């Protein structure tokens, strides 16, 4: 576990897919702005030119379009490590309420249009899938990762809603399956998003999962940090968790300067996800990171 060559700065996908956890109006604006994939590519190129080598990608319905666009620019593609975050949870929550999770997964598999490429068909098809939660999860992972199949995937993050549900229900077996599946089948680092860092560190230590790569919130106002900002900071200082931080601007609530002064004043920080929607915003963000983090951009470029 833990990546020795984790990218220091990773471009976040939220602005590109119309996600903003502070303002739904802003989310809609960005969604409109990035409807054309060219707009996304322009921002990715700009970030790459400023030293960014990693890109987070949720399995949003538009992820395939973005992945295809990246493939159309081989030099850009070759310069990027992709960090998928799966699944695109809004889709599953909405549909699970209506037809149950098993049926949602089955529909996803049928709708993927690539059934023969999925290993579930070699193991007995839908009937087997229906009875085996492990097969359901393996298939779900396969379906979700299809858009990224030939990209350079460095780590695959499990969405915080699922990680945190697994922690609450103490489903050690599900985590073991995820760790094994991502490492073996995809040769990538299995990683976890969470809003409960200290709990994850405690459970993983008890279960013997060493040095996990974790995507979690750190910001000076404690937004989305549970059970408290202080407990998360203590965990960072005392545990062996490798941290990629998100939400460092508290979804745009903080200015880059004050946000990164706090973030890189912490005892350590391994990586940071940044969401940028304009060149000016990107320049301001990268400059502020450079001011407070000696590890960047020199080692990333």
């Amino acid at each position: 576990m833990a990546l020795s060559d984790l990218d220091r700065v990773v471009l976040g996908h939220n602005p590109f897919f119309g996600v903003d956890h502070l303002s739904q109006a802003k989310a809609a604006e960005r969604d409109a702005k990035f409807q054309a994939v060219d707009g996304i590519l322009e921002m990715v190129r700009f970030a790459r030119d400023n030293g960014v080598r990693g890109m987070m990608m949720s399995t949003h319905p538009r992820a395939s379009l973005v992945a295809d666009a990246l493939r159309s620019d081989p030099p850009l593609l070759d310069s990027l490590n992709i960090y998928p975050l799966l699944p695109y949870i809004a889709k599953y929550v909405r549909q699970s309420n209506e037809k149950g999770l098993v049926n949602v997964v089955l529909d996803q598999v049928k709708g993927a249009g690539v059934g023969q490429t999925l290993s579930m068909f070699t193991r007995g098809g839908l009937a087997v899938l229906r009875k085996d939660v492990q097969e359901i999860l393996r298939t779900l992972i396969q379906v979700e990762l299809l858009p990224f199949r030939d990209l350079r995937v460095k780590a695959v993050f499990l969405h915080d809603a699922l990680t945190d549900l697994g922690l609450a229900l103490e489903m050690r077996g599900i985590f073991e399956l995820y760790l094994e599946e991502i490492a073996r089948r995809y040769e990538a680092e299995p990683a976890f998003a969470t809003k409960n860092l200290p709990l994850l560190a405690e459970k993983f230590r008890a279960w013997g999962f060493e040095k996990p790569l974790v995507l979690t919130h750190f910001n000076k106002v404690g937004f989305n940090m549970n059970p408290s900002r202080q407990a998360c900071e203590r965990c960072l200082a005392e545990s062996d968790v490798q941290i990629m931080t998100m939400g460092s601007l508290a979804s745009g609530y903080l200015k880059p300067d004050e946000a990164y002064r706090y973030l890189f004043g912490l005892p350590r920080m391994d990586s940071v996800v940044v969401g940028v929607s304009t060149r000016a915003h990107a320049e301001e963000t990268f400059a502020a990171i450079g001011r407070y983090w000696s590890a960047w951009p020199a080692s990333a470029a």
Partner: protein
Amino acid sequence: MVNGLKSADVVAAADPARDLLQALQQSMPNLATYEDHEQMLASESLDAAVIAAPNDLHVAISLACVAKRVPFLVEKPLCPRAADARELLLKLAEAPLTNAVGYMGRHVDVFVKGKQIVQDQPLGKLVHLRCSMYVGQLFKRGKGWRYEKDKSGGGVLITQNSHLLDHLQWYFGPVEWVSGHVKSWHSTQVEDFAHAYLGFKSGLTGYLDASWSIRHYRTPEISIDVHGENGTLTVTDDAVRLFLDRERNGYPAGWSTWRKPDLYRPVPIDVGGPEYTRQDAEFINAVAAGRMVACDVRSAYHVQQVIDAVYESSAAGGRRVVISGDA
């Protein structure tokens, strides 16, 4: 979620879907599973139950809990029609038991702040209300029980807008009358759009508008905008904004804004939103103390009455329908 709280453990689950039970058992070997809730209630000694089932089963399962004296938290909305819940109301009145309905919006920080401001009354007499709840999720005919009126009770008004109606009665008290219009577009049995003019017992009047078929709303979005004699208050999922003509009841003159990070309160464990943690913790703590919670079957019954009245009014061309106080 409940299992993530230190004060509770999930020990049993009931669901007619055998696949789901098998999946749960594979992941949680110590969990007792049943294909029937009656069987579970008969076999297990439970301190409390959480009911998450299609709307038309909520009351029957709640009644089974009442019969076994098992406190329960039931998902919203309470039932397809208000009349369905009368027996449950009577039983709970005869022999009180901790019960809660899952309108978790009452635990969202921005709406808690809005409630506090309304309660502190800086706006003076409330005059006019306009509010909405939109999400862009249905742009073709939906499949499943949510779109079958007998099982769900209706469309966007009951399925999602019941959250907004619960906020309104929580903020402004009971609704006295409504004039409503609903419209189906993608759906055949249930409404995709709803609009209602509401008259509250307090004298406040105003309108709500709702749809699950409005584009560019990735997630459900509530907006409550109330005008009083001294200013205005707007509460949305993102922020609370208050304007006052001068300092009143401890609130400053002019604009005051509280955004989500200003109001954020961490929780012991967050699974999909702190509001769910707070809702479950409130229920479990109330069970342990033998207390009632505010968002209970009785208050959810009133939400149901308002929904029924909107449907009745719409069917009668928008005629004003007065809500009876039989709860």
